[in-house]
């Protein structure tokens, strides 16, 4: 399990080259298969993207953005395949019941990053919203895809994003036309299931038109105990005056590694909330970028990480104020048990002319044992002079005064701990803007804190 997280650093040039070579070979082997099943729109980008990836290879800890997370062991592992699914691969997933599934939502399932062949490849739901396979959408809505695909990752230097562009061949596409406000949330259930160790990539694209509104829940699950690595990229475009709420709930087993890269591009007066709720997972790296590109845009970037054993959770948040009059607020909280480790890197960038910016950031972590470790790093780059900006980070233990207060009312120490941890986590949950989801998230967090999620009834994996 130790090799699954930031342990011994490997900077050896030989290993780097060997790793890069491995991906170069993987690319040439799988490219014909990927090409055959994908639209030209995606295929035209692949070789260029792979070239960019090979220039820098897998990010090492010398890279400031990955200082506390060692990815090399994950990528060095020999996964049995770059997965291309057949019809039988979806059988187990069909029986899956998500903990959040009885929520009233429009649901879609992705299996190992692919849209199952058994469902409608793309469907229209009342109000004119389209949900379905990204690959399918490339045929049906080429102009929308062409306008948005790959546009919000352009300025990035992170090689993993290029790797995704090179290898991903499917994912979810959501299109909300101008003026459509969807009240019922859309739910993507990301399942990883195989009797082999697999490395998978998926690519999502969400386009929310002017004055539209959508809430999207993304649930990450693993259904078999094999070693998995996921490198997913989500691009979202949020039009003028639109509202986009993204709630990501991660509940994977300890042998699973999840890398998510989310880019949210906002036009003027749009509002976005992004919530990364990491309940369980071996290694989790969530990189979330908010691009405030239109005046009056606002974003709320929230995160909650609950980890134990050797788990490692890295949240990398990057808020870019490109224009004046935008506001942003980052709130990330976590509880670390056992020997788990976590990272928070919160960047606030304010461009030279982005006057009257308000940007806030707070990171608080409770450490339950002397062996757990938190690395918190604010990163402020402010080039405008009329800016309100604050940031703060705390790392501490459960408040003994509060513990005694609860005990003095007859509450046992274990119950008191649970209440305090729940209260601490609730500060993130209560900011989730979608009412029915808040209660659900509270319930899941409580289950996790009680230690019940690792024995989740719907999960076939018995996590140890």
């Amino acid at each position, binding site marked *: 399990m130790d090799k699954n997280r930031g342990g011994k650093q490997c900077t050896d040039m030989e290993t780097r080259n060997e790793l890069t070579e491995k991906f170069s070979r993987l690319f040439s082997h799988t490219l014909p298969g990927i090409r055959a099943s994908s639209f030209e729109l995606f295929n035209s980008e692949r070789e260029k993207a792979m070239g960019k990836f090979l220039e820098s290879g897998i990010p090492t800890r010398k890279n400031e953005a990955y200082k506390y997370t060692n990815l090399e062991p994950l990528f060095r592992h020999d996964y049995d395949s770059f997965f291309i699914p057949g019809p039988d691969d979806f059988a187990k997933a069909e029986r899956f019941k998500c903990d959040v599934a009885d929520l009233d939502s429009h649901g879609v399932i992705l299996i190992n990053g692919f849209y199952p062949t058994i469902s409608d490849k793309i469907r229209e739901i009342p109000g004119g919203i389209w949900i379905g396979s990204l690959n399918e959408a490339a045929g049906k809505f080429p102009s929308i895809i062409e306008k948005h695909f790959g546009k919000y990752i352009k300025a990035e230097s992170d090689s993993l994003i290029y790797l995704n562009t090179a290898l991903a061949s499917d994912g979810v596409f959501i299109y909300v036309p101008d003026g459509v406000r969807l009240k019922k949330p859309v739910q993507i259930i990301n399942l990883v299931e195989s009797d082999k160790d697999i490395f998978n990539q998926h690519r999502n694209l969400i386009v929310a038109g002017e004055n539209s509104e959508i809430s999207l829940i993304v649930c990450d699950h693993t259904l078999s105990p094999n070693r998995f690595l996921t490198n997913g990229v989500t691009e979202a475009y949020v039009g003028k005056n639109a509202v986009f709420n993204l709630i990501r709930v991660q509940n994977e087993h300890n042998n699973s590694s999840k890398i998510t890269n989310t880019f949210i591009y906002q036009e003027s007066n749009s509002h976005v909330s992004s919530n990364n709720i990491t309940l369980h997972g071996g290694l989790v790296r969530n990189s979330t970028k908010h691009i405030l590109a239109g005046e009056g845009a606002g974003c709320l970037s929230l995160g909650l990480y609950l980890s134990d054993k050797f788990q490692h959770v890295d949240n990398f948040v990057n808020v870019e104020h490109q224009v004046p009059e935008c506001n942003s607020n980052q709130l990330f909280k976590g509880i670390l048990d056992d020997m788990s480790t976590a990272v928070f890197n919160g960047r606030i960038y304010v461009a030279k002319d982005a006057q009257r910016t308000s940007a806030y950031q707070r990171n608080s972590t409770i450490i339950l044992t002397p062996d757990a470790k938190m690395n918190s790093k604010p990163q402020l780059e402010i080039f405008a002079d009329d800016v309100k900006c604050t940031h703060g980070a705390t790392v501490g233990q459960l408040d003994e005064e509060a513990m005694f207060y609860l005990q003095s009312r007859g509450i046992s120490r274990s119950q008191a701990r649970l*209440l305090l941890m729940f209260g*601490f986590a609730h500060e993130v949950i209560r900011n989730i803007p979608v009412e029915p989801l808040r209660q659900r998230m509270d319930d899941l967090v409580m289950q996790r804190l009680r230690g019940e999620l690792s024995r989740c009834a719907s999960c076939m994996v018995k996590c140890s």
Partner: protein
Amino acid sequence: MLKITNLKASIEGREILKGINLEVKEGEIHAIMGPNGSGKSTLAAILAGRDFADVTEGTVTYYGRDLLTMAPEERSREGIFLGFQYPIEIPGVSMVNFLKTAVNEHRKHKGLGPLSASDFLKMMREKKELVEIDSKLANRSVNEGFSGGEKKKNEIFQMAMLEPRLAILDETDSGLDIDALKIVANGVNRLRKPDNATIVITHYQRLLDYIIPDYVHVLYDGKIVRSAGKELALELEKKGYEWIKTGEENSVQTWKPGMS
């Protein structure tokens, strides 16, 4: 119900309580008064089980049991309630969740099943009325953003919910305006029953205009230097604590249990 015998306690090697003797019986209200730093809050904390002071000598029995070996939560379930001088804010924990957990732990201790959600809410409503608490307070997180007065009223509300046999109110009157003081005092008086008892710890005589004690004890420099009936409080108000300090030598042995 409570018997404190020659209780001595120190904090970081400094002796704070220097031999306290006190007996509280069912139905009684005792007031413990004294200047700042005399050990009042340390005594309250020791009775509730806060472990920042080391008990070096003496005993405390509660219905014949050794109180000092009981965990704080067990003391609470056995009927001891501490009203905090500075109630703690607990963001994110709702009053409902907090009190439901507490009430059900008390019920479990008595061999009863948990209250249904509707019974619990009904109980909260009744108790809120009893102690005249603004119903909105109960919808918020525990003490979070409460004013000083609201926090103290909330202590009395919790006391009403848990129906203690022995309530120890530590400086419950500090920082209260006269209206809040009356509400707090009314709450205490309404919760009074023939088989429960209250220890009111206070710096000022003011609260004792509304909660009439059976006994008043003066704590000074870690010892009870004078005990008498309620008239002692008035005397203290008139003469100030200087009178006690100078009269210390004579007053130690003037009172015996049963006198008032």
